[in-house]
Structures are given as structure tokens and as C-alpha cells.
């Protein structure tokens, strides 16, 4: 059994039987977890069918295209026709498409041309086969012995980019009157992209279920390709046993979160070198210790014993979930992660409790990076956060400083009230606010927290006058625009609308706002209507 089709045997059997006998004109394959793998399996399968001698069935030619790459009809037609004829456009030839000799017809102009193109391809391929088998005197019934299979990956994209082609593509066999089968492959169900009014025929459905944990472990283990050179490396043949053990442990950790085998493979690729490193180190050390023995079989790396295996598992178990947390959302890439999370040199001899938790705090880096903004931009971001989180009618109470000092009376929390609990605005996402409101809140923040750090300006004598000047400066407006272009603040009104003030939404999270406020020594929680 081929390693790559592990877990997909059913698909292979069904599809190869179909293609070999009487393929339905329209097949829809749905893989909700990992269509990439399904796509490559279908491609290898069709390639195999194409290469093998057809026997009693027809000669199969297939084309596999990606609906993202084929974002216009022309590219789609070109790709299908060139793939069916195995035509490679040549640069020196002006990148010409496949065409019959002496034929000047364009096949990529419209769908009609495409149908003509398919027919031309069909007769061309038939001729080719005929030419080959001249001596054999083929029977008349086998004259039209070509069968096309067209696979479209990421078919859900057809609905957006080429929606007008969806119906004709699904009826392609009908339209061309050729022996042809169209396979759409997608992670979306057919119901979600089906054209309205029943314009398309119902497909033959093939649904691929998510792989089970055992199959993923098998796939992982079978992917262990021992390196050919005899030098010590994590992919040394002797470590295969350890690897299968590692794969099982890794799947135990990851399977509840993702069923995608390629994601688990990705994490495995990042963690395995570190996992195997202590074993390799130990071997290296033992080699160095008994140099004098110099026996050939002694220098061979042997599979580690059971107790080492157990210790490795215990040592690395925490880092497996750490890897999942960082690598699954791609907060960092596997190469960097593997480099950063190398195990301590003598981790095997250390006590398990002393094992270092090689996790660095993500909060640290965010604070350092936010430092790069100018001071006024930080104030604007905090003001934008407050404007997006607090309701507008609370502004006077939160920021107003009247003569009577009964300020900042926050809304009383009602805990006894039954019914659905109200979700704080902070968790509901930012609301839009106008530029004027932003500037007003900015002024309040500056007046309270920025007065000491300003340059002296004796010409401003009235309280608040300096702040007033500051908030209406050109640099403030340009900072708002700059932050908008950095997407730290989102503009919600179109840029060409000059009637009325523009409105914005805050683009930073509570944690970033809190870090910024801390730098500026603004008591953020006191200023929030609905604090955490």
C-alpha cells in the first residue's frame, strides 16, 4: 500500500473504478478537513490510470487545475487544454498555447471556443493513439477511445470568480458530446455553491470523512523517510521506532484540536529534531567516551531503550502543546520554532522537575514593539480604544471635569437581574466613532496625563488652552491618517466623502491598549465604562 494514500483507500477504489468503467459526467468530492491532500491523491491516481495500459477500457487523459490560479476564463481554458495535451508553453516561442497545426482558431476567447478546443484536443489525441497502434488494426468501436477527466481544485472559488462558468462546466459532457468527466474538489459542500434554479445536474457525491487518529499516526510514521547518508541526524534509520512512538504521543496531544494530517505533520517536523537530539547527543558522548574500543557495531546508533523513551516523552510533553499553540495559528514558523526550542544539552541527565520550560512570553515583545510609536500616536490609539469601547453618552461622565467633584460615576453593576447576561462592549468588538469624538477624548487624556512632559509655552495662560491647541495641530490629524494606513485604526467612512467628519474604528486589542496606557501612565480601567 502506498504511504500517501493511507486513509484514502476508499476514495481511490471508488474513483478508479468509476473512471475505468462508466464515469459520471460530474463528480463532486468534498473534503472538509484537508482538500490539499485529497487533490494530490486524485492527481496521482489519475496519473497512474493515464500511464497504465488501458486494456479494455478507454485511454484516459486528465487535467487538474486550481480555481484560485485560474481567476479568469481565459486562464482556465488555457490551463485545461494545455494540461490535457501535456503542452508546455515555450518562452522562445512567445508562450504559444497548444493548437492544431495550421489551425488559427482561438480556443480561449469564449466558452464556445473552449468547446471547439476540447473537440480538437479529442481528435488530436485520437489521431496520436491511432498513429501509434497502426499496425494493430484497431476495431471500429474503439475509434473514439479517449476519455477526459478534468479536476478543478478549490472549486468553491468558481462561484465568486467565474460564476457564469459553473453551469456549463458541470454540463460539459453534454455540451461537448465527448466522453468526459468533470470532478470538482472542494472543502465546501455542493449545496453552498450550487447555482440557483437547478441549472446544474446533481453530481455524483464522494465525501471524504476526517481521518481517524490511528490513521494519522500511521501516515506520520510512514512519512519518516530515513536519510540515506550514514551521518547522525534526526532521520537516522535507527530512530524510526522512536519516531512512531513520538508520532503517537504527538497525535494524542493534537488530535482534539485539529484533524488535518498536514498540520500535525508540520508540528512533527518542527518538534522531531529537538526530540531526537538528546538521543543523538548521548550516542555522540558514548562514542567519544570509548574511542579506544573502536568497534564498528559499537558506533552504530541503536534504537533507544524503553526507559529513555519514557523520559523523553515526559520531558517533551509540555513542549508539544506549546508547539501546537504557536504553530497551529502560525504565530511563528516551524524552522524558527525548532531553532528556538532546542533542548538543553544534557537534558536526559537532568532531573525532570528542572526541565526548562522554553516558552517566552508573547506580551513582552508586544510592549517593546509598541514603543516604536511616537507619543502622540500612542495617546490617539488609547483615545480610539476608549471611543470604540465606551458608549458615546457616557463620555461626559467619564471625562467631564465639572466644578462639582462628583465625577466619574460609573454605571452601577446590576448582578441580580436574570435573563441573558449582557456581554461587555470590549468583547463585542469596536464601534465606530467620529473624528470629533476622538479628538475630544484625546484632549481629555492629554490634559490629565501629558501636561508635565510638554514644552513650556508661556503664551497659553487659560487652563486647557494649550491642550486645545495641541489637539487641533496638523501633526495630530496626520498621525490619525498614519495610524489608519497602518490599520491600527480603521476608517469606516469612504475616503472621498467630505461631508461631515470621518468616522473610525479602533483596531487594537484590549491588551495592547492596556500596555500603551501603562506606558503613558493612563489609568485605563478607570476610564472604561465597562471595565474588565
Amino acid at each position, binding site marked *: 500500500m502506498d504511504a500517501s494514500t493511507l486513509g484514502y483507500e476508499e476514495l481511490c477504489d471508488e474513483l478508479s473504478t468509476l473512471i475505468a468503467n462508466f464515469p459520471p459526467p460530474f463528480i463532486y468530492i468534498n473534503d472538509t478537513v484537508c482538500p490539499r491532500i485529497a487533490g494530490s491523491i486524485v492527481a496521482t491516481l489519475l496519473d497512474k490510470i493515464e500511464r497504465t495500459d488501458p486494456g479494455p477500457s478507454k485511454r484516459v487523459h486528465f487535467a487538474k487545475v486550481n480555481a*484560485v490560479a485560474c481567476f479568469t476564463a481565459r486562464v482556465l481554458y488555457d490551463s485545461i487544454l494545455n494540461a490535457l495535451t501535456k503542452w508546455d508553453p515555450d518562452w522562445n516561442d512567445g508562450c504559444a498555447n497548444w493548437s492544431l497545426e495550421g489551425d488559427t482558431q482561438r480556443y480561449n476567447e469564449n466558452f464556445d471556443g473552449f468547446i471547439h478546443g476540447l473537440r480538437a484536443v479529442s481528435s488530436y489525441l485520437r489521431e496520436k493513439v491511432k498513429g501509434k497502434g497502426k499496425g494493430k488494426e484497431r476495431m471500429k468501436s474503439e475509434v473514439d477511445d479517449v476519455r477526459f477527466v478534468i479536476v478543478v481544485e478549490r472549486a468553491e472559488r468558481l462561484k465568486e470568480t467565474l460564476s457564469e462558468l459553473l453551469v456549463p462546466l458541470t454540463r460539459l459532457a453534454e455540451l461537448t458530446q465527448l466522453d468526459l468527466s468533470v470532478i470538482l474538489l472542494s472543502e465546501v459542500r455542493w449545496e453552498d455553491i450550487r447555482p440557483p434554479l437547478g441549472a446544474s445536474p446533481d453530481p455524483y457525491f464522494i465525501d471524504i470523512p476526517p481521518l481517524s487518529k490511528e490513521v494519522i499516526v500511521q501516515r506520520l510514521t510512514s512519512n519518516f523517510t530515513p*536519510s540515506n547518508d550514514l551521518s547522525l541526524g534526526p532521520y537516522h534509520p535507527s530512530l524510526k521506532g522512536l519516531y512512531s512512538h513520538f508520532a503517537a504521543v504527538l497525535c494524542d496531544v493534537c488530535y482534539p484540536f485539529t484533524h488535518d494530517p498536514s498540520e500535525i505533520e508540520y508540528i512533527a*517536523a518542527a518538534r522531531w529534531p529537538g526530540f531526537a537530539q538528546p538521543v543523538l547527543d548521548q550516542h555522540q558522548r558514548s562514542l567519544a567516551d570509548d574511542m579506544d574500543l573502536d568497534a564498528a557495531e559499537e558506533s552504530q546508533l541503536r534504537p533507544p531503550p524503553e526507559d529513555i523513551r519514557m523520559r523523553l516523552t515526559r520531558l517533551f510533553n509540555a513542549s508539544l502543546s506549546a508547539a501546537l499553540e504557536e504553530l497551529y495559528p*502560525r504565530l511563528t514558523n516551524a524552522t524558527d520554532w525548532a531553532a528556538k526550542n532546542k533542548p538543553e544539552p544534557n537534558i536526559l541527565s537532568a532531573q525532570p522537575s528542572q526541565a526548562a520550560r522554553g516558552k517566552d512570553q508573547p506580551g513582552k515583545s508586544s510592549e517593546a514593539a509598541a514603543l516604536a*510609536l511616537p*507619543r502622540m500616536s500612542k495617546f490617539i490609539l488609547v483615545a480610539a480604544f476608549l471611543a470604540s469601547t465606551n458608549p458615546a453618552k457616557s463620555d461626559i461622565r467619564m471625562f467631564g471635569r465639572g466644578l462639582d467633584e462628583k465625577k466619574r460615576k460609573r454605571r452601577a453593576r446590576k448582578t441580580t437581574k436574570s435573563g441573558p447576561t449582557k456581554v461587555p462592549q470590549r468583547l463585542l468588538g469596536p464601534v465606530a466613532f467620529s473624528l470629533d469624538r476622538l479628538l475630544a477624548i484625546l484632549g481629555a487624556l492629554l490634559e490629565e496625563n501629558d501636561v508635565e512632559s510638554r514644552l513650556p509655552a508661556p503664551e497659553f495662560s487659560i487652563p486647557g488652552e494649550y491642550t486645545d491647541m495641541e489637539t487641533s495641530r496638523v501633526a495630530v490629524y496626520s498621525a490619525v491618517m498614519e495610524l489608519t494606513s497602518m490599520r491600527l485604526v480603521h476608517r469606516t467612512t469612504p475616503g472621498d466623502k467630505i461631508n461631515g467628519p470621518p468616522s473610525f474604528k479602533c483596531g487594537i486589542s484590549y491588551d495592547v491598549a492596556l500596555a500603551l496606557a501603562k506606558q503613558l501612565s493612563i489609568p485605563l480601567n478607570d476610564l472604561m465604562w465597562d471595565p474588565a
Partner: protein
Amino acid sequence: MAEYINLDGQNQTTFTIPFTGDDENDGGTETPFPRPLHYEYDLPEGEKLRIDAYTAAWRKCLDRIKSIVRALHAPIASEVEHAIYTSYDRALPGLPYPEIPVIGITDPTSSSTFLDQIAVLTDSFDLEDTSNITAFTSHLYPNDCNNVMSAMKALISGFVNRPHILDKGKGRSGISLANYDIEILSAWYTAICNTYDLTEQRQPKLIVLLHDFEQLDPLVIQDIFSISSLYISRLPLIFTLALSSPASPSYLHSTYPRSTLALLRFSNYTVPSGAKVLEEILLQTFFDSSFEPDIIIGPGVLTYLADYYNRHNSSVDAALNILQLAHLKHFSGEALTLIVRSTPAPEALSQDTSLPFIEELLSRLQSFETSSNANDRNWTKQSISSLIAATDNARTDMYSRARRLRIGFGIVKLIQDFMTSQGYKGLDWDNPIKGIGNIDVMISALRGGLGSDVKFLGTMVKKLKTSQLGTLLDSMHAFFNSLPLVVRSSEEEARMNLVVAINALPPRGDDDVTGASSQIAANFADWLVKYLNGLLTPLENVPLWDIWYTGASLFPSSLINPSVRATVVAGLLHPHDFTDRKKDEARADPALWELPDTSILFHRYLDSGKMLNIYDWFMAFQQELETQRKNLKERASGAKSRQSSPRKRGGKGKTKEKENAESEEDLERWQLEVQARFVRALQDLDYLGFLKHTGRKADHVQRVVFDMHD
């Protein structure tokens, strides 16, 4: 010719730069250099001399700063270059599918320049020598990326449009691949590798540089990434992103879905930015003993620069703008600045027209002579050449003073750095809690405010251990040796003292029982304090100091960062301040009727309550216009020959009004005109945002600007 411009004015927030020259030849006319406040004693060709001096001085400063910035960028640039070339060698074994290497360059300030620097470094395909690893680059700008088709077209044509490397074969456009099909790139790449016979290792990389990455449509870029990912085994594409948003929270991670991120191998590099960059620039431009700027920037400008940089715009460009404006202001504010680099030749000065200039120069020189040296007072008797000599002396004197100041600052900084490296707190510079940075120290050095710091350093040096003192003396010796030869020779005495102190120290490792070394340390510290205090004298007591030193003069901040509302209100209240007006009527405050309509309306607006009744407003406006009409009529009759004031707008048809009783028709026309002018002015105010239409009360608008204290 431009009127004088008073850049020091605190109330004036805007300046007009009148257009001179005609529309036809834009390129040919030179912008006039602003004329100084007191230009009575200017030389005839003074303007040109000042422009030359300004250009030379600014060029010198700019080149220096550019080279500093380049040096600051160099390490990160080479790091990125290395990352680009090795990006395909770094892939881990065992990955499920190949990833696209993506390199993010976080540069909050000048993203494009750095990316261009990278492009120049990496676009290195050499026809002659194909033995090195090379790369091609293609640029993608936000304008190219409105949809996938145009983005792909731009990306592909950026690579393949290189006829000098590989010409495209002729083909009919209809039957060949579309020019946005990535197959074209693939075909081209195969052809390149075949034509130049490139093996696996030497195949060039394909670098795509995405400018202003935040501006690019994420949906388009997602598709580009997924298309590229399909071809990554055939085309070694590398994406380089110019990010201006901070590295964390990462824009890429917050905007793009996981499915796209899973295709990429993203690594980020951050270009240095922030306060440290400015510090480095100032330190190496104005406080480096091996570089001499023509103009010494004073504490006034530096204070503003530091504040603006930290508060509003932390980019090198902003700092350059401010420094350039400071140069410009210095040269345009004082006529004598034409002698900054060299004194005019005696022939030029001996002409009659130069007499006021010579007198002014003389009086400036003499004002210092009287205070410091009263021996030689008969300047007027002496020849012009001796005046020139005196000026040259003043220049040399000034520059050597400045040099000594820089050396002094350098030594203080050296000792401070030494103290920090030894684990002492030292002078507690660069303490973010106290809000003191190195820039503040530079400013206080220029102000002559380092005296107590020097004293404190002296005390600290006294208490140093023998070995520590030895190290300090050695590094100071090295500092003197690193000075340029000219500078070093002037500090010969200090070096002698240093060498003496070094020699007097007991050899290392000896136990100091006698206390001899503490005696040496005390002696040395005393000398050091005296020496440093001698070096760190303010620059303001040298003859003609204000020619080379901007001193405490403030930076015209309203040129860079004016307050929009204050400026608009000031414009409405005092419109004449913003226009070119004759000098004789400069200070007379014009009466209300002399102002433009919008201003009249605005004045009345300020007198109102919270809500404005439009009709009352109109009546008040009409009343003022009646006064205006009457006054204009009087003026016209008073001086018939003179043209009526051209500054009144909308005054068409009034000047020709007869003095006799107006007819009914005229009156009606006048009424109409007043209405039209009112509506026009009202629209102006509405457009400027002074009115709020509430709709709550008929014929009323709400006032939005209050508290005008002007």
C-alpha cells in the same frame, strides 16, 4: 520680491510665500530666498552669497546625516540580504509541503527607501558572471493591486520585462498565454535557466517586493500567495513585505486567515527607529569631535526637534526637515550670515554699496571688543583687510570653541559610559523614569549647564580604585588619540597631563598601601574638573557668535505643525495679517467694515449666543455693509484719483456709484447684492465647519466655536 518674514513671531501662524514669475516657465524661475528682517546693511549680491553659504552648509550636514543613517541601516540590510539568499536552504526536512519564504521588514518610518536599498542589493543578475547566486526583483505597489489580474500582471512583467537578458519570441497574442498567467513566468524562468545553463545551485531567486503592505488589498494578496504556493517547487519566489505597522500585534497575523498563513514561512526584521536613531544622528553630527558642521544648532532648535520627534513623528525625514528649516531660518534671518564660510574679498567690500555692511560688521565686532579687550579701538582707521582678518579670526575662534565643547562633551560621555560599564549609576543619564535622555544632556551641555555634573564626575573619579582608574585613563588616552590630527594638537597639554597620570600610577596588581594612587586620583580629578569646565563654556561670548550658532532662538514650529483651528480662526479675525500689505499701514488695526465679508460675518457670529437667528445675523451684516458702502463712497470722493481699496471683495459696481440720490432700482440692486454676499459668506463659514444645522428651531443654526480669546 518677498516682503520680510518674521519667523520669530509667536502670534503669526501662517506666512505667505508670494508667487513670483509667470506660469509659462515654471522650471526656470528660482524661488526667492527670504529676505532678513534687517536688510538695510546687506551687500548688493548678499542674497546669492547667503544662498551659496546655506547650500554648502546644509549639504555638509545632510551628507553627514545620510551616511549615519546608512550606517545604522547597514547591519539589518545585510541580514535581510543573507536571509533572502539562504531562505530556501533553511527549510526543515519533513514538512508536509514547501512553504513560501516571506520576509517582513518592519520600518515604521521610511519603508520604501529601505526596501529600495534591499532591491538594489539583491537584484544582481549578471550576464557576464553567472557563477554566483543571483536574484531578480519585481515590485508590487498598492496601485497595481486593485484585483488579482493586475497584480499578477505587475508581478510577472516585473520579472520578465528584461529584454537585455532574454528576449521574448514572437507570438500571436490571441493564441498564446495571457500576460497575467503565472505559466508565463514559469516558461520564462525555464528559458533563463536553459539559456544561461544554470545548475540547481546557481538558479536565480525571484524576489517580490511588496511596498506599503498594509495598503494592499488582503483578498488580492491572499490569492497571489496561494497561486505562488502552487508553483513554489518550480519558481523560487521570495516575498519581501514593507510593513509600517509595529511588529506586534502583527498586521499579517491579524489580517490574513490561517489558511493563507499556513502557506508562508514568515520571518520579521525590524529596522532601527525611535529615539535612539535621533540620538545617534545628533551625537554624530553635532557632538562628534571628528566632524565640524558649518552651523552649530543651538538648544532652542534641539529642544523642539527632540520634542517633535518623540511626540509626533519619529522619522528621520521629520528630523531632516526640522534641521533644514533651522538652517534656512538661520541664513534668512540675518544678513551677516553670508560670511559663514568665508569673508567676501576686499574688492567686493571696498565698493561704496558695501559701506553699510562693513559698518554693521564693525559695530558687532566692536561691541565685543569693548567688553573684552579695550586696547585696540580705532577700527575705523584700519583697512578693510584687517577687518576681514578680524572676521576670519572670529570664525576660527568660534569653531575652535565649538570643537572644545565637543571634546568636553565627548570626555564627559566617555567617563559616564565608563561608570555605567563599571556598574555605577554615574550621572544617571538615559533614565526613562526621570525622563532624561542623552538629547537633554546635549542640550544642557550647549547651555553650559553641565557644571554640577562635571563636579560630580570629578568626585567619582577620585573614589575610583587604582585598576579602574588605569582603565579609565587608558580609554581617555585612546579617545585623544582617535581625534583628528588638527584637533589633537590643540589639546596637547591635556594629553601630557594624562600621560603623566598614567605613568604615575602604580603597576596593576600592586596592593596600594601607601595611598599614593588615591593621591594621583585626587590630583587627576581636580585637573579634570578644571579642564572640563574650561572646555564646556557656552558659545555665546565669542565675537559674532550668532553668525555660526543658532543659540537659544526658537524653532518656527508653526511652519511644521500649525494648529488648524487656531489658524483658521486667526485668519478670519485678522485676514490682513495673512496678506501682503504695505509696510506703512502694517500696525494699524483695520475697522470691521474694512474686512472681507466672511470676516465680518464671523465677527458677528462671535457676538451671538448659542443659537444664531439667521435673520438677525443678516441684519447685523447688512448694517456693517451700509457702513462699508458709506465709507467707501467718502473715500472715493475724497481721493478720486486714487483707486479704491482693492482688497474688498465683491465690491463690483459700487465704485461707479454716483453721489446723487440713489434711484429705486439702485437700491433694489444693492439689496440683492447684500443678500448674495451674505449667502456667500454664510456658505463659506458653513463649509469651514462653524455652523451646525440642528433643525430644532426654524431659521436658527447652532454655533460651534466658543471661547475665542483673541
